[in-house]
């Protein structure tokens, strides 16, 4: 009996969660090298994925959301505090990388962009909202975007960015004087479009994007590929 013959009947049971833990592990090992089972799995998966839609729908009690959000907010705050504690040490440990952002040529380019802002800035509605065009690396000729700033917050929108698919993600950095503070990471998917909400940019001197390992970095590993000096 071939390996495939032995496992082909497991596809349905696997999709329904009906294999034991050991059987599931064995099937997944087989699956990695079996194109036929992969194809069968992809074909039948929509049927299994549809099953939750068949059940009678209820609203969960409010206390469930309250207790869940209390835990999540506490964890998010702890993550932010841990990141803030790590930041100075990492910056001190890799000064050479940090300085790359401040190379004279780059600063000059930033100044040129800053000069252009007078033309590209568009005011919308009240005085509290403005949009600044982003400049992108020449290696991405079709890419572009803008930063829309409303009060303390901003939305960075980018289009036609390469889909990094895999280990790396895009990461946003906020420039505060000579410091680059890590902000959010994002992916663009096949559409090439990305949108990132950035809280608290009022005091930032610029918003930049680099490509970093999944999960983000504490110091930028390359010169920015998207720049929005403010």
């Amino acid at each position, binding site marked *: 009996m071939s390996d495939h013959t032995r496992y082909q*009947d497991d*596809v*349905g*049971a696997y*999709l*329904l*969660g*009906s*294999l*034991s833990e050991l059987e599931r592990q064995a099937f997944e090992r087989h699956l990695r090298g079996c194109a036929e089972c992969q194809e069968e799995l992809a*074909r*039948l998966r*929509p*049927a*299994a*994925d*549809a*099953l*939750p*839609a*068949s*059940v*009678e*729908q*209820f*609203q*969960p*009690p409010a206390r*469930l*959301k309250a*207790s*869940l*959000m209390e*835990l*999540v*907010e506490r*964890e*998010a705050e702890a*993550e*932010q505090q841990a990141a803030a504690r790590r930041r100075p040490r990492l910056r001190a440990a890799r000064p050479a990388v940090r300085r790359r952002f401040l190379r004279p040529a780059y600063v000059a380019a930033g100044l040129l962009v800053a000069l252009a802002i007078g033309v590209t800035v568009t005011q*919308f*509605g009240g005085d509290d*909202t403005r949009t600044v065009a982003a400049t992108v690396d020449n290696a991405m000729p079709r890419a572009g975007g803008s930063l*829309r700033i*409303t009060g303390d*917050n901003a*939305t960075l929108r980018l289009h036609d960015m390469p889909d990094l*698919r895999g280990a790396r993600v895009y990461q946003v950095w906020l420039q505060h004087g000579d410091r680059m503070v890590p*902000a*959010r*990471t*994002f*992916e663009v*998917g096949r559409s090439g479009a*990305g*949108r*990132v*909400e950035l809280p608290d940019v009022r005091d930032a001197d610029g918003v930049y994007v680099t490509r970093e390992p*999944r*999960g983000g970095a504490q110091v930028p590993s390359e010169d920015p590929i998207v720049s929005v000096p403010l």
Partner: protein
Amino acid sequence: MAHDIRDLADEEVMQLVQAGDPRAFELLYDRHGGAAFSLAYRMVGRQVPAEDVVQEAFLSIWRSRLRYDQTRGSVRTWVLGIVHNRGIDALRRSTVHDRRRETLDGVEERYEARERTDVEVARREEARSVRGALDTLPVEQRKTIELAYFGGYTHSQIAKLLDEPIGTVKGRMRLGLEKMRRELVGGMA
């Protein structure tokens, strides 16, 4: 003009969740918590254990948020897959296999889920379509699929329960899913 994250698509909300934004996570829960709770309740049959399953699942979603890969499916499918796995864990670690559904206790606290009208209409249509596809299955295929997916039973447990060979049980699962797939595809055509 403030930007409202409630206007964002699930995949965009998920990017914010991946960046560690609790407000985006709350929105994710608001959108899918009802379906998650309903699935968990269908599986474990009691309100408090269903709440435990949902809480465990959403905490797991928050803690493993970087693992979401939109190329492998929708956010909703990913969320409900995690809820399903947690539901199975809960059923299998339960020593008391009393899986009768609650009849009275806690009924007062349950309400039908309400969503935006357009979403609600689409979801009701999807529910009708999936129930219709299940109804087309021969009774033994439907029973096998329900025992596996909602009951959390392994194929060997089902074989014992139904007094059928394991190969027959596995075959019913595969054939049943195949027939459902054809019905669903036909329904969308």
